[in-house]
């Protein structure tokens, strides 16, 4: 479980996050939703320590991240996996080398053990016969899946996904959502997902926080979201013809 306590963040005097407090539960897909520019990525990067929040704490299963020593922070980071918006695969490495990278850095496995683990996670995300391709040689959907494979290679406790299906066609997007949700359940991870995609919300929104202009505006789950009378959330959810009709 991850607890977020009173996180605030400003950039050059402009407040991007205002006193956000929430929690992300273990074994569930926890969604952060909101319009582009509402502060989702900044919130996620504060959680994972890529951006230092001005105020507030992030607590990983009781451990207050900002109070850990540098070394403890690095160890905790090894328990986190992150799927970046563009995949962020290392483009000078092949698919296999990308997935093996964290294993090289942080384990004492033999080469064969590493290779087995790589093949296992690649298989788990349904990638076959691409081990020796470079990121520039595979499709957007595959890049996301390889990035997921890399993120889960070390069996993380916490998985963060920033817009996992942006830039993908609806069908591939759904495959990725399913995959993340299945892996979350299978490995009992605490998974946090940023999205502005209503399909994802309805598919995998086990817990949902709605960020509006940097403020936590609404919390609930996918059933609650259809019935809410919160005006801004309604505006966000029912912004398309399709969702209006679905209602």
């Amino acid at each position, binding site marked *: 479980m991850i607890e977020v306590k009173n996180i605030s963040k400003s950039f050059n005097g402009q407040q991007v996050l205002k006193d956000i407090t929430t929690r992300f539960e273990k074994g569930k897909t926890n969604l952060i939703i909101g319009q582009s520019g509402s502060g989702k990525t900044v919130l996620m990067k504060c959680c994972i320590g*890529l951006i230092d929040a001005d105020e507030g704490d992030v607590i990983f299963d009781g451990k207050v991240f900002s109070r850990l020593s540098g070394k403890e922070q690095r160890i905790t980071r090894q328990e986190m996996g992150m799927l970046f918006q563009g995949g962020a695969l290392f483009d000078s490495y092949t698919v296999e080398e990308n997935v093996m990278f964290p294993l090289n*850095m942080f384990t004492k496995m033999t080469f064969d053990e590493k290779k087995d683990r790589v093949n296992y996670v690649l298989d788990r995300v349904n990638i076959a016969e691409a081990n020796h391709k470079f990121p520039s040689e595979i499709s957007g959907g595959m890049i996301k899946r390889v990035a997921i494979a890399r993120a889960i290679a070390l069996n993380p406790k916490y998985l963060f996904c920033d817009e996992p299906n942006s830039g993908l066609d609806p069908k591939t997007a759904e495959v990725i959502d399913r995959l993340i949700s299945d892996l979350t359940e299978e490995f009992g991870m605490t998974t946090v997902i940023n999205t502005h995609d209503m399909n994802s919300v309805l598919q995998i929104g086990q817990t949902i926080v709605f960020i509006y202009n940097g403020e936590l505006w609404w919390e609930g789950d996918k059933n609650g979201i259809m019935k809410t009378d919160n005006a801004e959330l309604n505006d966000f959810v029912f912004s398309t013809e399709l969702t209006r009709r679905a209602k």
Partner: protein
Amino acid sequence: MKFLYQVGDYIMIMFQAFKRPDKGKVFRRQLFIDFQNMGATSIGVVTIISVFFGAIIAIQTAENIDNPMIPLTTIGFSVRQMMILEFGPTIISLILVGKVGSSIASEIGTMRVSEQIDALKVMGINPANYLILPKITAAMLYNPVLITFSIILGILGGWAASVFTGIVTTTIYIEGLRAWYDPFTITYAFAKTEVFAFIIASVSGYKGYTVKGGSVEVGQASTSAVVTCTILIVVFDLILTQMMLM
């Protein structure tokens, strides 16, 4: 003001870069890759330019000494001095700025804007150390080799030009090469080379590492790396020359 901020930022990033690598094996692998990249990108241009420059110095010197009071050994001597003192260390370093520096800045800059550096950090890796240190190490080990190579080629170029155009014979050229030799010039050349290698790799690495934005900014960082390194190299050339030769 911005300049002071950048200097401070640069120093902080260098402090991070100069930590002990987490895994020696991974560091050596990165180092090897950087060696390959640098070797592949620069050896051709260095060869061509050095040979031609040696030849040009020989011909120009011959042109300027039609006074019979000046011995013909001056040709070999001039080629040697020019190659060791200035051409090898400084001009080749300036060429490497354009080749190696810009490629370091754009490589690391691209990794920054495509969040690959964030990905490293999330994994608990020190990205400055992982990315910049091998490049500095590679440049500081490889550039002296390249500069030695350049000096030798320049001297050969000067010899070829002298002999084929009939300015001087091989014997006189070699006699010139051996005249008034001061071993300290070699120390001076390598000291400059090392300082310049450090400037090229660290400043370009810094420029790439601190890119914000997208591909346009990566291009700007690459250009800015070239300009900054060029200026720093000539400034340090003057400083080192003052310190070591005066």
